[in-house]
C-alpha cells in the first residue's frame, strides 16, 4: 500500500536527520520517496528561486536609507540612542521629584493655615447638610433633627438653617467651652474660646491666642468641622488656626471636663448670634461627637437639652 509506505518514509525523516535535511533542502536523497514529494521539492525550489522584479522595486529607496543609516545620519525611524534615553529618564525623575515636593509643601501649608478646614467647613459641610442629608433622611427627619440642635444653641425658635449651623458651633463651643469653661471664668465673651483652650492645652494655645480677635464669627465653623473630620490626623494644626479647632480635641476631652456645661451655655448664644451663618455646617458630622457634651449640658439647657438629645 502506498499510503503505508509513505507513512514509513515520513516517519523515517524524523529519525534520519540526513534525510530530513535533504527533504527541506529540496534534494530527495532517498529513491523511495513518495510521489507527492516531487511537489514538495518543486515548492522548495521555487521558494528559493531567484529574485523577482517586484521584490526589488524598493531597492533605490532602501539602499539610500541604509547608506544614511550606516553613516549615522539622523533618521526619523531610527530609535533613540541609549544616552538620550538616560538623560530623558533623569529629567523625568527630577520632574517627578519636584512635583512631589511642591505638592507636599502645598498640602502642608494648606493644613497649617487652616485653608483646608475652612474650605471644608464653608463648602463641603453645608452642601452635605443641605443636599445629602435630606436625601438620606427623606428630607423631613434631617429638618427635624437640625432644628433641635439649633434650638439648643441659639434661641431655639426660628429658622432651621441658622440653628443647624449653630449646632456645630455649640459643639465646638461646648467642648471648647469645656476647655473654655475656665475661659469664661477668666475672660468673658470675646476672648472666650481661644485663650482658654490655649490655657488648657499648650500646643494649640499659642495659635488660638491670635484667633480670638476675629473669632467667633466666621472662622469658627470651619474648625469645628476640621475638628470632627480630621481631628485624628492633624489635631495640632487645626487647633492653631482658630478657636474652633479647639473643638477638635474637645470630643475627646468633652466627657472629662465637667465644668463645660456652664460655659457652654454662655458662649453658645454669643457664638450663635454672630457666626450663626457659617457655623451651621458642622452639625451633621459633628452631631455624634458633640452629643457627649450635649448630654452634659442637658440639665442646664431646658428646651435645647431635649433638642440636642433628640438630634443625637
Amino acid at each position, binding site marked *: 500500500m502506498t499510503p503505508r509506505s509513505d507513512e514509513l518514509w515520513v516517519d523515517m525523516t*524524523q529519525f534520519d*536527520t540526513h534525510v*530530513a535535511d535533504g527533504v527541506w533542502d529540496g534534494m530527495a536523497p532517498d529513491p523511495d520517496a513518495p510521489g507527492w514529494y516531487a511537489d*514538495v521539492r518543486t515548492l522548495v525550489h*521555487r521558494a528559493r528561486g531567484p529574485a523577482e522584479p517586484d521584490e526589488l522595486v524598493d531597492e533605490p529607496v*532602501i539602499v539610500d536609507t*541604509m547608506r544614511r*543609516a*550606516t553613516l549615522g545620519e539622523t533618521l526619523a*525611524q531610527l530609535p533613540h540612542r541609549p544616552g538620550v534615553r538616560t538623560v530623558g529618564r533623569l529629567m523625568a525623575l527630577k520632574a517627578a521629584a519636584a512635583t512631589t515636593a511642591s505638592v507636599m509643601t502645598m498640602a502642608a501649608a494648606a493644613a497649617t493655615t487652616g485653608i483646608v478646614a475652612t474650605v471644608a467647613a464653608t463648602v463641603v459641610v453645608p452642601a452635605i447638610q443641605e443636599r445629602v442629608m435630606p436625601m438620606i433622611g427623606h428630607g423631613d427627619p434631617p429638618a427635624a433633627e437640625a432644628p433641635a440642635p439649633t434650638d439648643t444653641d441659639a434661641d431655639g425658635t426660628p429658622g432651621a438653617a441658622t440653628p443647624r449651623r449653630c449646632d456645630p458651633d455649640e459643639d465646638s463651643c461646648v467642648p471648647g467651652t469645656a476647655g473654655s469653661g475656665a475661659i469664661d471664668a477668666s475672660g468673658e465673651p470675646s476672648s472666650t474660646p481661644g485663650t482658654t483652650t490655649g490655657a488648657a492645652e499648650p500646643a494649640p494655645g499659642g495659635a488660638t491666642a491670635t484667633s480670638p480677635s476675629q473669632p467667633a464669627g466666621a472662622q469658627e465653623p470651619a474648625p469645628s468641622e476640621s475638628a470632627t473630620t480630621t481631628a485624628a490626623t492633624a489635631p495640632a494644626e487645626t487647633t492653631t488656626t482658630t478657636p474652633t479647632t479647639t473643638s477638635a480635641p474637645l470630643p475627646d476631652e468633652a466627657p472629662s471636663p465637667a465644668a463645660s456645661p456652664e460655659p457652654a451655655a454662655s458662649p453658645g448664644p454669643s457664638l450663635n448670634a454672630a457666626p450663626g451663618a457659617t457655623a451651621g455646617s458642622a452639625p451633621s458630622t459633628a452631631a455624634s461627637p458633640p452629643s457627649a457634651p450635649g448630654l452634659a449640658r442637658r440639665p442646664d439647657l431646658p428646651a435645647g437639652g431635649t433638642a440636642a438629645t433628640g438630634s443625637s
Partner: protein
Amino acid sequence: MMHEAELPDVVDAAGRGEHWALTQLFRAYQPAVLRYLRAQAAGAADDLASEVWIGVARGLPRFTGDEAAFRGWLFTIARRRLIDHRRRAARQRTDVVASERLDVAVEWGPSGDPASTVLERLGAQGAVDELVAELTPEQAEAVLLRVVGGLPVTEVARIMQREPGTVRVLCHRALRRLAVHLGDEVSTT
C-alpha cells in the same frame, strides 16, 4: 544568497556606507526576507522589510561572522520586526490583505487547474504560501526559516529560541501535513 568568500568584504564595505556593497547585500537577501515576511504578514511585508534593512545597516559596522552567521542575524532581525508588527496588529485589530493575494485566490479557486499545473504556475511567493498554507504558525515559521532562509536546524532553533529537537519535530509534522495536503493518500494517524 551570496558566496561565502565574498561576503566579508561586502559586509565590511557596506559597514562604511559603500553604495555598491549595500546594493549587493540587498539584492542577495531581499527576496528571501520579503518572502519570509510576506508569508506571515502579507499586508505589511514591504514596510517590515524596510525596517529590517535599516536595522541591518545600523548593525553592519559591528557585525562579524561568515555568510551563515549573516543570514542568521538577518532573519533574527526580520523575526523580531515581525513579532513587533504582530503586537501592533493585535492592538489595532485590523488584518491587511495584499491585493495580490486576493487575485491569486480568485485565480486558483476550487475549480482551478490540477495540482501539478498549479504548482508549475506558482511564482516564488506562491510556492512559499503553498508550502505553509496548511501549517500551524510554529510549523510555518520553522519551515520558512529552514527553506526560505536556508538556515540549518540549529540556527533555526536559536532564532526561534527552541531546542533543535523541537524544530525537527515541527518540520516533521509539517511534512506530514504537506503529505496530506499534496498527496491526499497518507493517513496522519
